[in-house]
């Protein structure tokens, strides 16, 4: 039987409900046991600019988006203008019939650069500069086009339910678009209705109305449209399946591992996590009274990290969450946390820089910055998660690293990971261990020294409020008590004590937590972060053709796990660096730390995440020795 694997794209103006439509669609499919991988793209804008959701659905395990659209749904012209070219030759488009005569010039949100490319494209084919012209090209490519009058459907629905106000309920278009799509794709109607119910369950009236609309749309499609070549159908659903986004995984991990303080300043794409934590600020605790996380919105990111450090000094597991521009402001305080050996976690959601860059788009631009943030030499750990499921467990590990080694930890994520919605195995908090390191709960005697020189470089840690545990902190160099000292001998002892924690971390953090090997081969991909899914899917595609490529996912980026990587690369001849930035930042680390040099680079910095198709194509060129040293990927609207 042919594998069922489709990509459904819905687009529309920001604020029109595209995201909730995609959630209903994804959930309905996931409820039948199908796998989901969805990504959201949007402009830095509140209302009106184009946003879209690409949801890939499959009966196989999927970890990425692919090139091409199987079914595109549009109730605005811009969605057609921007995405029609990506619809596969045997794919389909469902769009509002009122859009046909809209001209390119009539869509003000089409930026001039894109518009000129579109006009050139239409002119080269001698087509009218309108939706009609564009759809003619589609017809020539054998794409199925279903024109639907959403206005008439709303009117008919109003009539059927004897509720005239429905005529003007344009937000209902979203549920109609989803139900028509699912009817067309041949999924059964029950999961659709269950999904609508689940998503609107807090508002029973709205849920009921949407279910009626969903039913109507679903029946409309099954009656009106001929069977589509690509269909999806229920498969055996595994129990304990999650449908979850990356920022939620990070937040849940923090809750589970006992993070009780998070400060933040609003920034895309990091704030979603803080809002999620605040929405769930009170929770149950086993055999104890309810617990809570205090989430504080600060006046800027300097204050956010300052508060997190202040909180950490009380023995509270504390974090802040930010993106590149905010992290830039935190650099000075990183050094303070470093010299004072304060365990804090900074969750860094990268986006495209520099400066404001592409503020709502993806990028892995901040690896070098994370490693080097702050002046002077001080130890920190930079740790990267590769997918949504890992993020949950890694969030907890980062706090263990922070407390065990008493240093700041940067948990480096990105916009792609944050906004990916995917099916995965239910998170299991029982798999989380909590290591508080040398945190003291009691001190009997006087004379406590916060920075006592110890064998392993780590001093027993008191906290504000602990009797007999009084200490001093300072951003100056200090003696064992924490008082300012400019003594040259002490300076060397303290610098060496702190630096030794990097070596200790490399000797303590397990090999599997440093880097994961997904098979070693003559050609081997090295990468970090959210490229993991697309790489694994690309490697599977190659495998089907009998081509073998290895993959090592680096998780510990600083200190660099040189020994671990060297031993994994023993039998590798060709090293391929894959990452979403221009400078090949991991590549330069590899070249610095390994004996072998990177042979090929696959890079993307359009602000859009990599598809597995692109990586597959690039790897294939490398295997055929037809590739340039650097391949730059550009797919995606």
């Amino acid at each position, binding site marked *: 039987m042919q594998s069922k694997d489709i990509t459904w794209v819905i687009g529309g103006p920001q604020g029109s409900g595209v995201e909730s439509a995609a959630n209903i669609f994804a959930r309905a499919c*996931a409820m039948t046991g199908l796998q989901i991988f969805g990504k959201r793209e949007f402009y830095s804008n509140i209302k009106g600019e184009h946003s879209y959701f690409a949801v890939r659905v499959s009966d196989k395990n999927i970890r990425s988006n692919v090139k091409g659209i199987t079914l595109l749904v549009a109730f605005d012209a811009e969605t057609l203008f921007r995405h029609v070219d990506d619809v596969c030759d045997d794919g389909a488009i469902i769009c509002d019939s009122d859009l046909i005569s809209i001209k390119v010039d009539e869509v003000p949100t089409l930026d001039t650069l894109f518009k000129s490319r579109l006009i050139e494209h239409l002119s080269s084919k001698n087509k009218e500069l309108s939706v009609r012209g564009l759809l003619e090209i589609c017809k020539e490519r054998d794409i199925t086009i279903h024109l639907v009058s959403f206005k008439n459907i709303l009117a008919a629905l109003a009539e059927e339910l004897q509720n005239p106000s429905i005529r003007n309920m344009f937000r209902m278009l979203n549920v109609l678009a989803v139900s028509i799509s699912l009817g067309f794709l041949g999924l059964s109607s029950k999961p659709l209705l269950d999904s609508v119910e689940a998503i609107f369950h807090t508002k029973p009236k709205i849920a009921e109305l949407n279910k009626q609309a969903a039913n109507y749309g679903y029946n409309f499609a099954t009656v009106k449209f001929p069977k589509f070549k690509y269909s999806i159908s229920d498969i055996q*659903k595994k129990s*304990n*399946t999650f*449908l*979850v986004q990356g920022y*939620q995984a990070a937040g849940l991990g923090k809750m*589970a*591992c*006992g993070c*009780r*303080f998070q*400060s933040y300043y609003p920034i895309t794409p990091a704030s979603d996590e803080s809002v999620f934590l605040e929405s*769930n600020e*009170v*929770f*149950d*605790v086993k*055999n104890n009274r*309810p*617990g*809570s996380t*205090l989430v*504080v919105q*600060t*006046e800027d990111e*300097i*204050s*956010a990290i*300052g*508060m997190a450090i*202040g*909180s*950490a*000094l*009380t023995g*509270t597991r*504390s974090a802040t969450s930010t993106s590149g521009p905010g992290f830039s402001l935190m650099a*000075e*305080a990183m050094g303070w946390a470093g010299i004072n050996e304060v365990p804090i976690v900074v969750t860094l959601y990268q986006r495209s820089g520099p400066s404001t860059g592409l503020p709502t788009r993806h990028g892995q631009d901040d690896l070098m910055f994370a490693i080097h943030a702050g002046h002077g030499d001080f130890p920190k750990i930079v740790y990267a998660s590769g997918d949504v499921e890992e993020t949950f467990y890694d969030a*907890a590990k980062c706090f263990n690293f922070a407390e065990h080694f008493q240093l700041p930890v940067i948990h480096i994520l990105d916009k792609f990971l944050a906004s990916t919605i995917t*099916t995965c195995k*239910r998170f299991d*908090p*029982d798999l989380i261990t*909590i290591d*508080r390191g040398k945190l003291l709960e009691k001190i009997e005697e006087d004379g406590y020294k916060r920075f006592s020189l110890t064998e392993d470089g780590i001093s027993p840690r008191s906290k*504000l*409020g*602990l*009797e007999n545990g*009084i*200490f*001093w902190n*300072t*951003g*100056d160099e200090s003696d064992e008590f*924490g*008082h*300012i000292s400019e003594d040259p001998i002490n300076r060397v002892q303290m610098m060496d004590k702190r630096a030794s924690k990097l070596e200790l971390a490399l000797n303590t953090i397990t090999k599997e937590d440093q880097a994961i090997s997904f098979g070693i081969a003559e050609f081997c991909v090295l990468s970090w972060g959210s490229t993991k899914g697309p790489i694994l899917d690309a490697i599977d595609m190659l495998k089907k053709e009998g081509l073998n490529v290895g993959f090592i996912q680096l998780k510990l980026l600083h200190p660099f796990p040189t020994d671990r990587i060297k031993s994994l690369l023993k039998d590798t001849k060709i090293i391929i660096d894959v990452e979403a930035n221009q400078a090949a930042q991991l590549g330069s680390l590899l070249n610095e730390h390994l004996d072998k040099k990177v042979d090929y680079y696959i890079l993307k910095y359009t602000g859009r995440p990599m598809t597995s198709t692109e990586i597959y194509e690039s790897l294939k060129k490398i295997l055929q020795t037809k590739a340039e040293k650097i391949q730059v990927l550009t797919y995606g609207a």
Partner: protein
Amino acid sequence: MEPKLADYKTDVHNDWCPGCGDFGIVNAIQMALTEMKIPRHMSAIFSGIGCSGKTSHFVNVFGVHTLHGRVLPFAQGAKLANPNLTIIAAGGDGDGLGIGAGHFVAAGRRNVDMTYIIFNNAVYGLTKGQASPTLRLGQKTKSLPNPNVNEAVNPIGLAIASGFTFVGRGYAYDVRQLKDLIIAAVKHKGLAFLDVLQPCPTYNDINTRDWFAGLDNVDEITQKPKPRIYKLEETGYDPIVHYGSESEVNEKLTQGLIKSNEWDIKIPTGIFYQNELVAPYEERIADRVPNYLENSPATQPISSDGKSITEISKILDSFEV
């Protein structure tokens, strides 16, 4: 055992210049802590950068010497994580009203229950005497190449406008009054601000101890100097908001602002404004999270035998399909 003043002193060598006003402030802090009998381990001094930043090393309670301008974020984070602590933040005028001015305003909006003392000498001492935000326009202290081209910020007025619920001023050479002001500030329920006039004997040759004492302004009849410093409470001034009606609050705010503008001839000290009817940040949180104060972030248990005890299964259920 009764705490003694000596218990609150460290043996760290104090390297402030001889005659520095900072000595009076650190003494007043130590005296206030002794008098209030605050257990040493339940108190923390947070400080900024500059001469005043060293204060935390001289007091024998937890001492956190932070970054330039950032004392308030650090201090608020600690206080919110463990509301049982008595926290005093100390910093300079450049530290708090220059590089840290944004935090000053934001802290006022939060009204976290702690005390903030600014050591105000109108110069950046530790970097050799540049003009600070409180130096008056046109003044040329001795290490400035030219007279100051900026207007001075009004710390008392800014604190009142930002929402601090206790706003006072002390004088570093009146340690007894300053000690009483610190006690009142610490006991105040909400964010208290103290502007402490603190002559810098090395770099500020204008606002000197003699100048504050009025030695340059001798009464023609008595031939005695007319001190600039005076105490508000000796004039029958009532800073307290008693009932909280809009008109009363407006009256007290306005009165405080007007007093804050007195300078050249007469300089008021004491409490300018106090309003305990505004809920501190901690109470606002406790309204949402009922056991926040007795089960604060710092005191919550999070693990048992290395395993998480946070029960998130209900939330996890909502992600199941």
